[in-house]
């Protein structure tokens, strides 16, 4: 099954912010509990970060302030915040990569395995000047048994014996150049197979240094020997950006990216069981005109995020929110008010038309059914479901109060439905995987 949800809550139906730039955090003890950060500003202009929170596996979302240590929340994951960015282990990793002094360009991406192995990928500058650089793509590894005084020294470049195995050389990036209003940046993604810590995937977006007029191209690399050697996979996508990678508990690899058709941005998901050796037809989760709305700042959409959960994947992406059935080939559920016949967004009064903007979207794919894993603590009834809640009856999305009577209720559009499900079980697997904190996330220094 494929579930796609526009996460903007109904009570913020009049907002028109550029809400891309997402990250997704999964509580692997109870995968009903999800947290998403975005560029969404505090709705009333307060200071501090706000996050989207779901306790029903992503079917509904609320926006609330991110708890802080001052609120008595001790660990970053429980804070619903940037556990990946804030955890001591990841801070150490980011600092360690900085200390390698390898001429890094752009962000670092890391992936951690439950056995303690951590991989990180980054670009090393070989030429050029801001904002356009020639780079090599390097991967480093930290093994659990090695001392922490010299982390990420396990993969060396045989040419100079310094940390960082070259995955690809002679790749050009332009940090500020844009395509379809979006910054190209230095796109990188990495994921490790939760069943085999030696199996690693990397996705890159750039073009060859010796082909300056070449298309901005997504490419895939694979290693089965803990990063010592890398193969170029027979899958590339021209005019694609923002790669995200994840591997499910069953060894299925997911690739999420955004493809510029020349006029539209398409958010695509590809799922492979056989190391990309067979032809694939990408699932288009969302497609919308690339120049509506006008970008207010960069990033415009932000990088999508993908996490393997059970037999499937959870993900988030930013996209234009015009309510048009044609934009969602696999359907979507909107929380905010929308008039699907006239393709307009509606404020909470059900009448006032709101201009299109960039919204955060969540999706759940195939076997990624939420589950409470062994030892998980059930955290009690969700707000509003218990008998103690009183007051107004819940009003479905699509408008409130006078004037909303003509609007559809409930999930407004489910579309033609997902393609036939594979034979993989749709129910939760008996065991939930260990958290893979750090997989495919930014480690900005």
């Amino acid at each position: 099954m494929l579930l796609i949800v526009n996460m903007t809550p109904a009570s913020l139906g009049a907002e028109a912010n550029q809400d891309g730039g997402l990250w997704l955090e999964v509580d692997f003890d109870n995968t009903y509990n999800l947290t998403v950060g975005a560029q969404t500003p505090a709705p009333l202009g307060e200071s501090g970060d706000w996050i989207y929170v779901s306790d029903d596996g992503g079917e509904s979302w609320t926006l609330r302030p991110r708890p802080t240590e001052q609120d008595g929340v001790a660990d970053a994951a429980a804070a619903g915040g940037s556990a990946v960015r804030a955890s001591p282990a990841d801070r150490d990793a980011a600092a360690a990569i900085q200390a390698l002094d390898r001429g890094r360009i752009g962000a670092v991406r890391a992936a951690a395995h439950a056995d303690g192995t951590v991989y990180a990928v980054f670009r090393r500058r070989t030429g050029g000047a801001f904002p356009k650089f020639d780079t090599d793509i390097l991967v480093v590894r930290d093994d659990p048994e090695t001392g922490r005084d010299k982390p990420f020294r396990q993969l060396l470049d045989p040419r100079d014996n310094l940390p960082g195995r070259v995955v690809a050389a002679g790749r050009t990036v332009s940090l500020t150049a844009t395509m379809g209003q979006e910054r190209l940046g230095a796109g990188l993604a990495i994921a490790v197979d939760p069943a085999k810590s030696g199996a690693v995937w990397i996705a890159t977006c750039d073009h060859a240094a010796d082909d300056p007029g070449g298309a901005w191209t997504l490419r895939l690399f694979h290693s089965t020997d803990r990063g010592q050697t890398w193969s170029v996979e027979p899958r590339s996508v021209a005019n694609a950006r923002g790669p995200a990678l994840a591997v499910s508990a069953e060894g299925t690899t997911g690739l999420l990216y955004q493809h510029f058709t020349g006029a539209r941005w398409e958010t695509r998901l590809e799922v492979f069981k056989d190391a990309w050796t067979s032809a694939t037809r990408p699932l288009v989760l969302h497609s919308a005109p690339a120049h509506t709305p006008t970008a207010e700042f960069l990033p415009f959409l932000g990088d999508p995020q993908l996490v393997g959960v059970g037999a499937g994947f959870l993900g988030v992406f930013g996209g234009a929110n015009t309510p048009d059935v044609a934009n969602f080939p696999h359907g979507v559920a909107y929380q905010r008010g929308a008039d699907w016949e006239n393709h307009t967004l509606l404020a909470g009064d059900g009448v006032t038309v709101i201009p299109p903007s960039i919204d955060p979207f969540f999706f759940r794919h195939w076997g990624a059914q939420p589950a409470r894993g062994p030892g998980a603590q059930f955290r009690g009834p969700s707000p509003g479901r218990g008998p103690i809640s009183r007051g107004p009856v819940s009003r479905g999305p699509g408008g409130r109060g006078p004037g909303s009577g003509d609007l559809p209720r409930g999930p407004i559009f489910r579309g033609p439905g997902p393609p036939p499900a594979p034979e993989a079980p749709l129910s939760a697997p008996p065991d939930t995987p260990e958290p893979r904190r750090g997989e495919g996330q930014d480690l900005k220094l």
Partner: protein
Amino acid sequence: MSDEIKILLAKAPLSFVGTVLYLDAATSDHRVEGNSAVIGVDCVLHGPPELSHLAGDQITLRLTQNRPEIGEAFAFFTAGASFGRTLALTELGRINVDVVEPFITAARDAGRGDSPFAPLIEEMSRDSLRRHAEGAAAVVLARVVALEAAGDRNAVMEDDPDWWRATLDVGHVERGELKSGPVNVLLANSRDRAWSASPKGRPGEEGLWLLHATSGERARLAPFEITHPEDAQPTARLAALRR
């Protein structure tokens, strides 16, 4: 009383007149807490445009003041707590409705469609600008006559500020040790979210500029910088600074 309201406005991003409908209750998608109540919003007094349609809605309010009676109406000053199908707010202050009635009446009589507190908010905005100007090295009326890239070509991240050097032709010095004529200032040309609100300066643009002294490496590029959104103001804003 205006001072009391201004204190509340300074800390509360949303205020409204509301009637207490239920105590120890919450709207359906929010958690009931011991001090929460369901409030019917009668009219919005101030807040972001996104919530200007709140009148007529019922919201959850986490009370922090004395326990009110069902049916009582107050002017509530609030901050956001949670946005779901319905809205949950945290109370930051509360005053009697008769205190805010004159503001509502004055706005109505003047045919204003904006916040009843708009005059107070404008006063606070002027105060804020004055405080910001006090921290500036110079305040000038000037026109942008030249722009050139000045930044670090070794920057390695997408969110680098991308410094540009603007030459301002200063026509009037309101404050600071500066003479009329050309002066160089740094502008963050980046479109990254971190810098998008910083003044960019367009060729020929005239205005009131609040110049701040550069330090460290940036001092080698220009003596002043303009990075805060309030650093660039319309020329007419000079009058607000002088009051």
